[in-house]
């Protein structure tokens, strides 16, 4: 099985090769990259790996049922990812662009709702904060 979760930079060539083919005329790629909001220099991503892997396969299975001519793949990077680098890549290829865009959009929206993955923002001064921690708008721990 391919490595859906990786601790290395995402290789776009590799994921395109998994979905493209002469019978699929449209390929849609979504890349999510770490944003440098409010001095964020990197984000440390952690996951419940086994559950995330199972949930990814469920989401991809749903998309394949819905767009049966599409080929869809996904990578999520974990660990410390510097601002500007990709944390997630989704590629969907289908005979026509409508299915490719729709399948790609479906997968990223479900990932956002369902994958057990968490972000800790890291700042230049060495402080960090969990993005789900509502008590603090800014750094909490050193």
């Amino acid at each position, binding site marked *: 099985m391919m490595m859906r979760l990786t601790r290395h930079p995402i290789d776009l060539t590799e994921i395109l090769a998994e979905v493209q083919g002469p019978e699929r005329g449209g390929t849609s790629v979504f890349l*999510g990259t770490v944003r440098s909001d409010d001095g964020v220099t990197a984000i440390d*991503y*952690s*996951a*419940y790996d*086994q*559950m*995330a892997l*199972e949930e990814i396969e469920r989401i991809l299975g749903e998309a394949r049922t819905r767009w049966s001519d599409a080929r869809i793949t996904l990578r*999520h990077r974990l660990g410390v990812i510097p601002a500007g680098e990709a*944390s*997630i890549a989704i590629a969907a290829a289908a005979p026509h662009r409508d299915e490719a865009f729709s399948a790609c959009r479906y997968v*990223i929206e479900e*990932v*956002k*709702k*369902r*994958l*057990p*993955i*968490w*972000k*800790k923002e890291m700042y230049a001064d060495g402080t960090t904060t*969990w*993005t*789900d*921690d509502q008590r603090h708008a800014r750094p909490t721990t050193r």
Partner: protein
Amino acid sequence: MGKVSVRFFARYAELAGCDSSAVSVSMPATVADVIAKVRDLFPGTQAMPARPLAALNRHQVKLDAPVGDGDEVALLPPISGG
């Protein structure tokens, strides 16, 4: 009594002071009963919301889901993947 393994992730692991543990609960029990026991044993987890996201054997469930001996309950902070 049944033994349920418990896993903590991300901020909740920091609150608990560990990644995993096991708790004993009297059966029949629900995920909510396991969480109540966790709040007793790991006081830091009292800072979790009243109704945290939970997974039973790697599937997200509601807190009234029944648990059995040997099950795994994972406590999940709000999901922020992507």
